[in-house]
């Protein structure tokens, strides 16, 4: 059970949060101009790596805010947490 430092509320138990998959996949601004393959890339393709991964998390049972997390999936170490729209810290 992680202890997650919500950028709005502080440290809270993992059970208050919901994981939201890979971070920094921006919804295309002009979807109609994309080929099927390009759209499929956005729609379906997600990384699932062993190691440092960028993820979206939501404080679902708290402030309901989304934020980003850098997590090492091999040992679950949370390396950084930052707000939506902010640049990921250099790793």
């Amino acid at each position, binding site marked *: *059970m*992680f*202890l997650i430092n919500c950028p709005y509320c502080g440290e809270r*138990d993992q059970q208050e949060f*919901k994981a*939201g998959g890979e971070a920094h996949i*921006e*919804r*295309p601004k*002009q*979807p*109609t101009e*994309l080929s*099927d393959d390009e*759209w*499929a890339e956005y*729609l379906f393709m997600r990384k699932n790596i062993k190691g440092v991964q960028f993820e*979206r998390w*939501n404080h*679902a049972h708290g402030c*309901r*805010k*989304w934020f980003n997390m850098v997590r090492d999936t091999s*040992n*679950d*170490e949370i390396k950084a947490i930052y707000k*939506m*729209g902010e640049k990921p810290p250099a790793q």
Partner: protein
Amino acid sequence: MIKNLRVKSSEYIDETNRISFKFNGKTYHGFKGDTLASALLANNVHLVGRSFKYHRPRGIMTSGSEEPNAIVQVNPGTNRTEPNVRATEVEIYEGLEASSQNCWPSVEFDIGGINNFLSPFFPAGFYYKTFMWPASFWEKYEFFIRHSAGLGKSPTSSDPDIYDHRNIHCDVLVVGAGISGILAAKNAAKNNYKTLLVDEKNEIGGSTIFENNEFNKIDNKTPSEWLKKEIEELKNIKNLEIKTRTSVAAYHQYNYLLARENLTDHLEAKDKTNKIRQRLLKLRAKKVILATGALERPLIFNNNDRPGIMLSSAVKKYSEFYGVACGSKNIFFTNNDSAYESALSLYNKGINVEAIIDIREQSESKIVKKVKEAGIKIYWSYSIVDTTGYKRLNSVSIMKLSNDGTSVTGSKISISCDCLGVAGGWTPAVHLYTQSGSKLKFDEEKKVFVPNQNTSEQISVGSCGGDFKIDEIIKNLNQKLKDTLNIKETDLDNIKVEIDQENSKRNIWLLPSDKPLGKTKPFVDYQNDATAKDIKLALREGFRSIEHVKRYTTTGMGTDQGKLGNMHALGIIADTAGVKMGELGTTTFRPPYTPLTFGTIVGRNVGKFFDIFRRTPMNDWHVENKAEFENVGQWKRAWYYPINGETMHQAVQRESKAARESAGILDASTLGKIDIQGSDASEFLNRVYTNAWSKLAIGKCRYGLMLNEDGMVYDDGVTTRLGENHYIMTTTTGGAANVLGKLEDYLQTEWPELDVYLTSVTDHYATASLCGPNSKKILKKIIPDLDLSDENFPHMSFKEANIGSIQCRIMRISFTGEHSYEINVQASYGKDLWKKCMEAGQEFNITPYGTETMHLLRAEKGFIIVGQDTDGTMTPIDLQMDWIVSKKKYDFIGKRSLYRSDTMREDRKQLVGLLTDDPNIVLEEGAQIVSELNQSPVEMLGHVTSSYFSPNLNKSIALAVVRGGKDLMGKKLFVPMENKNINVTVAHPVFYDEKNERLNA
């Protein structure tokens, strides 16, 4: 005849408080402070159970939670019964009953014992091999295995006890209250750390509390005396909480630990009532200090499992702590000095010690000398090659060990005895440490795995950290405390420790016998009956990974997780395969450290709290009027209202007719409601719904379909524009929370520039849906001054009004196809609103209807239910709802996916109507649809999604998804059922009032 082996009073046993209890139906006596194990031993009862595979008689081996054999059923036959309880952990109380497990008809005479003689047929991997044999053989073995297997009986009636959960946050959590844990907790608390000290036993002090080895001294006192003084001082320390009878079951990441606090298990039945039995503590600690101690290892020799063979440390604890002699002719078998402490402890209490058999060549420590002086015979360089006694040990045979320790020589000496204390060295209890994700390393000198790489803020102190001697324990503890607590000085700085140095060690993982290995039974895992030869067999058969050997032989897979024998298993594998133990690694220790009851895990979430549910404000009325309920998401919704013994079918037919002929009323409070405000609210709706919203006038309502980004229908509902920048969206009952989550996600992460605010208001409003040709007259009676003309209040529009002084929002919208109104009031007025409607509708025979009638009525109209007629693979086009997909809008969620090559396929499953050729046959929802009957295999074209008998059309109707269904209008298809084939015809999905004339009726 019961022989009493209570030797000398102990300060931990209250001999004035005599307790009677039953074991296997026979009454025994013990004292307050006894465990079931110590009380049985005092009554000279060693035989307590049978082993799992061979049904060999087994006795009490240990004095703690690592016990592999003495597994009992507590209070059998009652609703408080609990299987798989370790007799070494049960504190006795008046009226306690316990029985042996795993034996039939009794522990004394057990039919499964024949397995012992059949054991050549039960090699390692027996179960695996059985599975691979011809299937026809399996039936025969299954009977046999099932009959002889089984670990205890679960209770058959509900648990009368209360369980609880509690969250605890602390600065420092100390696990284990032996000498290291106590000193760590004391120093943490003294330095202003909020400290919690937990221990699984009922008393703190660990094994040091009865450590009276006169050659070990702390500040010139015996460790026992010194520690008692320390414990006394704990009372005056602030910031320190101590919880006994609390065992940590799991250590997760981020210093999150689960512990079970046992509150009433040691009390008599009358004192258990109305109290919390066990509490699951959810501990979050800034720093964790593990002081879980070490477990003594047995030695692995032929027939090392007979009742009467125990750990040397357990023999000592029973004597020192409980005042019980485990035998009257005691022998010890050892590879280190520990057994000498036990022997001396017995000797000092006047208990007979016949001999010590030591596999070492010699030891010159003071305690060994003292034992020699006491006249106890020591056999140096000897090993036990066999034991005798079926239900109780009666002799051991010993032979001289060869120099390399792999064989025995010379003549065999037989020594008669009734208790054998075995000392094979100490294994740090690193279970919790590794559960936390931290990594071990193998200490070549100590031959054990010790903590190496920590992953969280934690330290391991005392023997669980690999320190076994009191001087190194204190020295290393002191340094670790300073480092982890950031302090300069501790209580330990000036302690003077003298110890008796042990000066020789000899470690042999598998001791030889004069017989070949194949003819012996050296047990490694007692609970699962895995022997050294099983492990060697697994290696011969090609298994190399420790995890594979474990599963193949079941070593370490019992409820005790092989706490005693895992190291030997590793050692034997390493020796046989010629690799280093450090390279093998250990098997994974998984939570819980000791078994947890289900009650503790679920806590208060039982009965009606097991799965919480929501009720609408009108719920009492539904209950009073005998509604049947159905679960929709978390809601309990009125399903139908049977009267005069109607069946569900009869009630639904009546309700459906009434709603179309005169008036019906539905509790629609459960629909999700999201309040949407902000200057970009219209733009936001444009992006989330498939249709256009900018031009929706204030006071108008519109139906919307929401897709996932993959183009599949996600939710639907009517949204009303309340003001320039204010909407109220309704969602499906089950989808409310997910829709809100999804909308928030888009707002926060994709479109943060939009000025939109979302608030869930589902619970704030109660909604009565009034429908039918007389609904207008009824509403007029309730709100006389509201102009209900079609000009002023047309279909798909909204009005605010007052019912008396109660404000309400009324939407003229319809899910049934009838003229209808949805009246929303503040939730607390919901029941009043409902009663007013019923009263006003009485003259029109207003009929309350439930979800089943609602589903039927909408099916007559061909309206979809998301989640029933859709399943996450249906696009609006598949649903024949092209009309709701805006062609003009540049983008909305899911738009791009609607013209992917896959979503544009003509042969996708599409929603159609189905009519049975025989109008009285109602199809089963989920039934498959085919176009050919005499073909095998036959292509499945689709399935029925909704099906009812329509009382208003007097025929059966159904909705279905069918491959390429749009182009199959009028085509004959078949629904094959178990006993018959049903002929159906594809139809338009709107069965009733295709022109929507009734909306304005």
